[in-house]
């Protein structure tokens, strides 16, 4: 497997022989097709991160993410969401499917 991009908490791999990708979330590794990676990207784009700083809109600063047609469920905090966004956006750049990379948002 080849590393496509590594962020602070996560790593995206390409498994050429299986024609798929893997994201290492730390506590578990999730297998994904490109379509599922696109779906994850869409979910991440739909998150309004500013809501995390308004207790009326997001009281606890968590997001529930269901991936791969509800096969996996993750509860991520603000920093983890920002880091996952960075991983996914930059991975698409590394894969040659996007042009604009995302700056580092977590350290």
């Amino acid at each position: 497997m080849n590393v496509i991009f590594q962020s602070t908490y996560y790593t995206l791999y390409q498994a050429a022989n299986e024609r798929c990708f893997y994201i290492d979330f730390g506590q578990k590794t999730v297998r994904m097709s490109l379509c599922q990676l696109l779906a994850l990207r869409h979910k991440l784009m739909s998150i309004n991160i500013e809501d995390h700083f308004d207790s009326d809109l997001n009281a606890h600063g968590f997001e529930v993410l269901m991936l791969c047609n509800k096969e996996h469920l993750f509860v991520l905090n603000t920093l983890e969401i920002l880091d996952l966004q960075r991983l996914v956006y930059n991975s698409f750049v590394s894969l040659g499917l996007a042009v604009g990379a995302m700056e580092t948002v977590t350290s």
Partner: protein
Amino acid sequence: MKDIARQSMSIKVESMDLLNGQIKMEAHASATYLAMASWCEQNGFFTSAKFFFKQAEEEREHMMKIFNFLVDTGGNPISPEVTGINHDYSSIVDVFESTLEHEVKVTKSIHNIVKKARELGDFATERFLDWFVMEQIEEENTVRDILDMIEVTGTEGVGLQMIDNKVLDWID
């Protein structure tokens, strides 16, 4: 290293995002024209209602064209949420003026995607949008012609009835 990503998808994700935005815009236009058809029916402009029913269908066809393009290129088309449709118009002139405004907005949006696709070197998206660029010229021209006809006819006396009858000329 095998390029699995490129083998699975033939356009840039930035273009895909903009095209998903366009899908939403076309869906919104379709719903807006349906609201206009409803207004025309309720206010006795039956020919104009037919015109807007047809426009609503056309906008949905445009939406599906983009949706299918994203399917064909391995993208992730998103079914749009449509909210905030205006149902209130002060007159038939207001209806057609709003239509022109809407079409100009759609044209600008299409041009913006063409520009971005060109910057990204996304030739497939750029070429795909050629049809939309030409279609928008036709759409804008139709509404401009109707507004010219309204100006010539005038809205006094039987003018409104004549306007509604004349709209038939723009229904294929």
